Structures are given as C-alpha cells and as structure tokens.
C-alpha cells in the first residue's frame, strides 16, 4: 500500500520472429508516495520503453500495471486516454511546448482537454507558474523562452492536472548542468510537497543525489543501485 505505481513482471518484445528483440525481461518496480525514482542506463537499453509502459502509452507484451490502485492492462484505448489524462503528467526530453500558445495557455490547454475551464484552473496555473518562477513569462510564446524556462513550463504543464505520477524522459538533456539541477530539484520538491511520485530517466549522474532511488536498466533487467551518501 501507499504505492502510486506498480509494475509487475513486465516484458516487452519489439518485432516478431527472427528480428524480435526483448527490451524488457520480466521486470518489476514499485514507486511509493513521495518518491522520485531515477532510471539510468546506456542508450538503447530500454529506458524510454520502460517509461512509456509505465505511462500507459505503450502496452507491454506481458505483465501487470497498476496506477493509483487501478489495474490498467485490460482497459480500452479510450479509457487509457482518460487514465493518462487524470493520473499521469509527462515531461519530455525537449520541452515540446505548443509553439502558438502562450505559457499560460499551455497550462490551460490541459484543463480544456479534460473538458473543464474554470476560475480554479486559472488560479492553479498562476500558482504553478509562480512557484516555478515563471509568473513574468505567462503571456510569452515558447520562442521567447530560454531552454530552462521552457523545461520549467513543461513541468508546470505536467502538474496542471494534479496527476499522481510524473514521468520525465531525460528532462535535463537540453539544459546546462546548473539549470538541469534546478529543474530536477523542482520536480523533487513538487513530489514531496504534493505527496505524488515521479520517475525520471536521466543520463546525468550529477542529478542522482536529488533522487530517492536510482535504478539501472541493462540487458532487459532492472538493478537498484545503492545511493551514495
């Protein structure tokens, strides 16, 4: 109990027949409330695949996925979409903001997509932007933001729906290490503050001290690394 996300015996095979590759081989992971878990591993080891499965974007070949105490493997595409919208916030490698929306609109779009648009959403967006130091940027377009600012908008956007879990795929890849650290720090703080959970794929060893656990992925297996003091 107290787990936001449980993955049990997940396997993923790409392709079929001779050309098939097993990227994940019966791996399991539980993420508790308030935890920020880092996933590390060489390129092509299956980090993004693992994250996509955890985020219900990709269905595993085998295994069970439980998000916020709900088993989602057998859900229809439409219901999965709803689960994603209500429970999961994504932060992508490059911020992937919509170029023609202002910073504020990027956040409001999320509540629009969920079919509501209230005063509360506006207030919530304002609070999030303020917390991430973006209040003065609210009416600007992404093209006028620095890389770090864009990534922070992406974080704010991911929090907009009040998701249980944040999934971030190399969120710091396009940032210098100082800004990268700031971004990760913000994710960690939000997770603690709002009692949520997060998984972050990262290449950057210098970020690991900000995470609660570090999991390495290699040859289809997960290994928990001991945290350095």
């Amino acid at each position, binding site marked *: 109990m107290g787990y936001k996300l449980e993955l049990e015996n997940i396997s993923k095979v790409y392709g079929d027949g001779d050309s098939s590759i097993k990227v994940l081989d019966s791996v399991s992971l539980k993420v508790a409330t308030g935890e920020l878990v880092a996933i590390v591993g060489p390129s092509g080891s299956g980090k993004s695949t693992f*994250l996509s499965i955890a985020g219900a974007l990709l269905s595993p070949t085998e295994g069970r996925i439980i998000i916020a105490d709900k088993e989602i493997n057998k859900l229809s595409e439409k219901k999965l979409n709803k689960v994603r919208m209500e429970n999961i916030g994504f932060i992508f490698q490059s911020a992937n903001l919509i170029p*023609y929306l202002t910073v504020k609109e990027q956040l409001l779009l999320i509540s629009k997509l969920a079919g509501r648009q209230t005063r509360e959403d506006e207030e919530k967006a304002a609070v999030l932007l303020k917390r991430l130091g973006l209040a003065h940027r609210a009416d600007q377009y992404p093209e006028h933001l620095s890389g770090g600012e864009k990534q922070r908008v992406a974080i704010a956007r991911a929090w907009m729906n009040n998701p249980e879990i944040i999934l971030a*795929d190399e969120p710091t890849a396009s940032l210098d290490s100082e800004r990268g650290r700031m971004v990760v720090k913000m994710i960690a703080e939000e997770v603690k503050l709002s009692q949520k959970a997060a998984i972050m794929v990262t290449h950057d060893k210098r970020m690991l001290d900000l995470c609660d656990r570090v999991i390495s992925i290699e040859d289809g297996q997960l290994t928990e690394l001991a945290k350095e003091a």
Partner: protein
Amino acid sequence: MFLALREIRHAKLRYSLIGLIMVLISLLVLFVTGLANGLASDNASAIQNMNADYLVLQKDSDNQISKSELDEKQLLQAKEVAGDDNTEDLGVRMSTVEKIDTDKKVDVTFFAVDPNGFLSPSLIEGKSISKTGKDEVIADAALKQEGLKIGSEIKDQASGKTFMIKGFTEGVSFSHTPVVYVNFNAWKDLQKSIGQEQSSVTAIALKGTDKTIKAVEKEMKGVNVLTTKEALQGIPGYSQEQSSLMMMIVFLFLISAIVLAVFFYVITLQKINQFGVLKAIGAKTSYLSANIVSQVAVLTIVSLIISISITYGLSQIMPDSMPFVLTPEVIAICSLLFIIVSLGGAALSLYRVAKVDAIDAIGRAV
C-alpha cells in the same frame, strides 16, 4: 476551435498566404461562374425568363427553336388538349433591322406574341402594343444603346417593313441579340415577305402540370415537348458556350481541391510532432480533427467573404457590355461547393492525424 484560432493568430503570415491563395482561387471560380451566367443570360434570357413551363417544338427541328415550324392544325390541337388559357403561340425570327434614316444595322430577334397573353413582356417604359396594329413593337432595352427611343422607327431588312417602338422591356435576348416583340398581325406580314405560310408559328408555350404535358405528348403528332430549360440547349451557340465554361468551372474546382489538399497536408505533416505531444497530454483524435476542420472552415469562410466582396466590387466597375450575372443563389451554391472542396482537402490530413501515436512524443533510441 481553441487551438485552431490560436494557431492562426500566432502564424499570421503563413495563414494569410494560404488565405490569399484561397481568395484567388475562389475569386476565379466566382468570376468564371458569373461570366458563364452572364453569357447564358446575354444569349438566351428571353427563353430563360419566359413565363412558361414548356415549349412545344416541331419534331424534325432537332429541338432547335430557330428550325421549328408548327402549322395551324397543331395550334388548334394544342389548345384543345391543354386548354386555351394554358397555351400561347410564339413566333421567333432572327433578323437584322436598320435604324431609320441611318445606315446603322442591328441584329435582333422578332418574337411574335399575343399582347394580352401570358408571354407578353412587362414594360419598363412606354406603352404596350395593340393586338391588331401591324407596325408596333416592344423592344429590349439593349436597343437604347443603339440610340433608339420610344417613337423611333426600325426597318426589317428581310421584309422591308417598318416598325415603331412603342415601349421597352428589359432582360430579353435570344442568341445574343435583343428581342423585339410584335403581334401576330405583324408576324403574318413578316412571314409573307419571305414566302412562308402566314398562319404557321415557331413554337407553342405551355403552362401546366406533368399531366397536361403527358396528354399533349400523347395526342399530338410530329411535336416534341421540352421544358424551357431544355429548349435553351437548342438556341444557336448556347450549349457550346455553356459547356466550355462549365468545363472551366469543373476544372477550377478540381484544381482547388488538389491545391488545398496538398496545402493542408503539408501543414499537417509539419505538425505531426506537435500532434504526438498533444495526444500524450490527453488530446483525442476527435479533438484534434475538430480543430483542423474548424481551422480550414474559418480560413475558407473568411476567404470566401473577401472574394465575394471583391467579385461584387468588380461587377460594379465592369462595363455594361460585359456579360456578368451572379445571383445570391449562385454565390451560395459556389461557396458551399468551395467549402466542401476545401474540407475534402483537409480529410487527407485527418487521416494522418488519426495515425499519430502519443508515444511518438517520448524520445526513443530509434
């Protein structure tokens, strides 16, 4: 709608350029359509606007009004079958008249009608002709441009007969010539002068239901019953003009369909990544499709409003001699077709959007 409008607002230049192309294409469509209609009415408004449903022509006339000839027996038979009130004799003779005291010649078409019958033209000026007077006419207002007025006299070249203009009507032409209305007394003189049977006429105009028409078709020998619309095809030059213009219009629509489809498709391809992100953050295909459709619809409607205004402006400054007619109905039909064509063009893009997977937004090693 939200995304659609934001995007147009943000990328004004790009969308103005697309809009400009759409304005130009739809302008061309409207213009050629107006010209086709203008030519049609310049050619044949006397038949188009005729206050009758059907025309009875001679069977051997190839459905061409100018070749048709009906004799007295057929006239009486038609009246008997369809009823006196529903039938009206019509004489048609293409000719050339001379404005008296000058050498100026004008091609006209004489229409012989009963001045009290339902084919009698409505006047915009002057008086109607009598049923018996042999030398009175009502002329199409186009003849005013030749310097003719009420009281002017014209001389028919073929018969040498002289007529006085009693009144003017408007919007009546036949084979691109203005129509001059005479009564049947004058018609007989015209017939006699060129050695034709005096009592024969060109056609019989009918009003009535399908039933009367069926009866006429069954009872009368040696005739064809055509709707006035069908009879238009038998006016010299009419179908040739209309079919070439129609072809242009069809091709314009085809070209716009292809150009717009390619445009929208390229724009959509450029945004495939964005659609992936939008799907990952919860947008459904239906939501994205609705946005694309509404974006195309907004662009099309704005472009149409602009091009309709331009067309209207152009038609105001065009010289009267240029045949150009665009009724609100025709504009509405053209606009509707254009909207359908551009939405059809967007359909290809919708297919692409449906295929985008949210997972594309996550960076993969591949």
